[in-house]
């Protein structure tokens, strides 16, 4: 049998690269978040380990790895053990279809955006499993809230993505980027509205302020991951930041032209756009208070979803008029 | 309406009320606690606010001290009820003032004065398992004595 060793090796290398990026990027984002929040709050943030606390993330990782893994006595063991994987694995998998540049993409699936959307929505299972398995009332409330929230915001999120798909005429991530060579999609008013809806829904998807209701510290202590410690907690933590990267990367690809930019290398443009969006989300997080559960749900169903639906309709009408 | 007219009107209605050490202080018996406070709150003096309830252990008697306040006439009145040590019971004011709930629980907790008609007379500051009333003068420290200074 002729085994394609080279292809296998390259696949393996790509997998390792993705995992390494997953971890390093999350650590960098944690450091960035701490620095940005410190700047907003008139503090310095981490300053001791390394220049400007740059090595703080390594110290934190070592600390998290060495922490004791505490299992609650009455926990539903299997569900409790599986939950962090259900959150982390889909997040890693979503990186497969992120186009960092013309060449840098692990798998340019012809249904790329569909793949990303569907696999990241698996996370809600993990979150609910964590809430259920911990046998903690705060965790349970957090898990329930999270499930309700993510399922609700999936609808306007996908509808806003649909607008881009209609404009681009393809589901492939690279195809969507190429479709923007004449001009970024966010320059069209209907797609700009979709961008807005996408950003709001995506913020809710990754449980960030003002939609951090599942984790609501002042109400639910820490929500679904209250009982987790050590490496299990860090998987939630890393996945949270990886998710942040993914929603920003999808936003950059779909609305801001992805890796397109005047000068090479294009990966540079891509990262600039992604980290710009991430910084914006962080700025929001450290400024706004949290909305209430019912306010958030009614906003999703009564405002965002109808708006997104009308937007899809208008886009279809515009495209039909053109074609 | 100043404090003396209020006291005069009260004395006209309830004979036997004695003015205490100062002019804004009354001493009443526990039989008239309910009607007196009802008159104070709903009557012309309008003492709408129950400011505090406390007690003083005089060894052979226990004084329950009420401070009521009237926003309308800007006066504060101190009302004392003197209880015999063998009969530490006084009618509850929870039906008149919501504030009485916790204040009476506190006095019960610290002095052991029972408030008749209180819906939920439990200890509030000390653990439920306690039996002593710490602010009584006969309270024994039960071995919890301060360490001698070396």
């Amino acid at each position: 049998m002729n085994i394609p060793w080279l292809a296998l090796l390259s696949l393996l290398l790509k997998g390792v690269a993705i995992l390494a990026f997953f971890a390093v990027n999350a650590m960098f984002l944690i450091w960035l978040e701490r620095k940005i929040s410190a700047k907003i709050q008139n503090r310095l943030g981490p300053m001791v380990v390394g220049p400007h606390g740059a090595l703080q993330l390594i110290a934190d990782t070592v600390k998290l790895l060495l922490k004791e893994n505490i299992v609650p006595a009455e926990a539903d063991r299997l569900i409790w053990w599986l939950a962090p994987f259900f959150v982390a694995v889909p997040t890693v998998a979503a990186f497969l279809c992120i186009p960092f540049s013309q060449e840098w993409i692990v798998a340019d699936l012809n249904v790329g955006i569909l793949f990303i959307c569907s696999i990241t929505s698996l996370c809600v299972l993990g979150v609910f499993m964590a809430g259920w398995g911990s046998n903690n009332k705060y965790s349970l409330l957090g898990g329930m809230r999270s499930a309700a929230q993510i399922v609700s915001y999936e609808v306007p999120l996908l509808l806003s993505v649909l607008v881009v798909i209609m404009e681009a005429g393809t589901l492939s991530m690279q195809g969507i980027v190429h479709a923007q060579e004449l001009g970024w999609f966010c320059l069209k008013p209907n797609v700009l509205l979709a961008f807005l809806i996408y950003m709001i829904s995506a913020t809710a998807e990754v449980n960030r302020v003002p939609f951090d209701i599942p984790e609501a510290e002042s109400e639910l202590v820490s929500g679904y991951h209250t009982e987790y410690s050590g490496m299990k907690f860090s998987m939630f933590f890393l996945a949270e930041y990886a998710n942040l990267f993914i929603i920003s990367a999808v936003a950059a690809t779909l609305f801001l032209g992805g890796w397109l930019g005047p000068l090479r290398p294009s990966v540079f443009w891509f990262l600039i756009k992604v980290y710009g969006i991430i910084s914006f989300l962080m700025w929001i997080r450290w400024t706004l208070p949290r909305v209430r559960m019912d306010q958030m749900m009614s906003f999703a169903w009564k405002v965002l979803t109808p708006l997104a639906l009308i937007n899809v309709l208008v886009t279809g009408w515009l495209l039909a008029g053109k074609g | 309406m100043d404090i003396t007219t209020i006291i005069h009107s009260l004395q006209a209605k309830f004979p036997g009320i004695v003015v205490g050490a100062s002019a804004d202080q009354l001493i009443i018996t526990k039989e008239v606690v309910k009607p007196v406070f009802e008159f104070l709150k709903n009557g012309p003096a309008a003492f709408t606010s129950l400011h505090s309830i406390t007690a003083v252990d005089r060894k052979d008697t226990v004084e329950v001290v009420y401070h009521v306040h009237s926003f309308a006439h800007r006066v504060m009145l101190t009302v004392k009820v003197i209880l015999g040590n063998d009969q530490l019971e006084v009618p509850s004011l929870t039906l008149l003032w919501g504030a009485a709930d916790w204040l009476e629980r506190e006095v019960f907790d610290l002095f052991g004065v029972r408030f008749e008609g209180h819906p939920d007379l439990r200890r509030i500051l000390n653990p439920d398992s306690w039996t002593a009333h710490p602010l009584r003068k006969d309270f024994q420290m039960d071995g919890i004595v301060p360490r001698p200074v070396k």
Partner: protein
Amino acid sequence: MDFQELTINMGPQHPSTHGVLFLQLKLDGEVIVDCQPHIGYLHRSIEKIAESRSLVQFMPFTDRLDYIASMNNNLGFCLAAEKLLGITASPRAQYLRVIVAELNRVASHLLAIGTFAQDLGAYATPLFYALRDREKIIQIFDKICGQRLTYNYLRIGGVAGDLPAGADQLIKDFMAYQRRILPEYHDLLTGNVIFCARSKNIGVLPKETAINYGVTGPNLRASGVAWDLRKDEPYLVYDKFDFNVVTGANGDSWDRYDVRMREIEESLKIIEQALGGLPEGDPVAKVNKVFRLNGEAYMRTENPRGELGFYIVGDGGPLPYRLKVRSPSFANLSVLSAMIKGMNISDAVCVLGSLDIVMGEIDR
């Protein structure tokens, strides 16, 4: 189908119970059916301790009641003791007391606003702003009396020491700074859509309920009752100053926040006038250290959290026969379970935060 209520123990260790408060909540879904507060985790029996301390020795204990506003506690106790003993402080001491009490009120309100915003989920940013500004007041107090939290600065009959050189300039700088920085809070919170949606019409405390439960201070004024002891039963030299009693319209959580914001401005006005009219003289008390306590006295003062009352009974000896502390937070907390029934958890946290309690003076 069979429905069951979920009992949740919120506290004594919980991020938003402001100390060791234990709320036993019965939930239907996320709606609170019943709330049973349990207090006493911080009970030190300060009233019993008072019976074995002279009045001068008891002064440091008052710092530890409402540790956010120690100066105001010192003041309340001093005035009660002075009322019992018939002592009047010198004019300069009275002015100094007003200045430190109002500075501490500003510090306390800043912290209240910061923690309230924190409870609404504004991740630490307003709280850090508040702590940053409060730090300036703490540094002033540090210069005046050498302490940062438990000041023990006031004495029966006066204060511990005169203003040190440069302290009045510090206070003036702080006032200019605070007036400049207050709009920042308004930008961040007051007009914020989410902040208003979370706090407006949430936890409405009607005037009658507030009075019935003995609620005082900013919480009472937010319900629309214009009652401020500094204005209505003036003590010290408050009647010489021009300031307003701020009231709210609806008595909701937002009003309680807003009243505190505006009271900061009024306090700054008072400090400015007091500093401008500071009379010459010796503020340090020239009175005995041991007193014979006869009779009884009840004195209440306007603390940042409401009316703080001290009831001192003497029996002719040097030690108080009985000393009662009427703490404002105790009454303010007792209304909580009546307020939050039928709300969901998020709103209950908002109401608790807006009431601004300090467990140190509730448990005593």
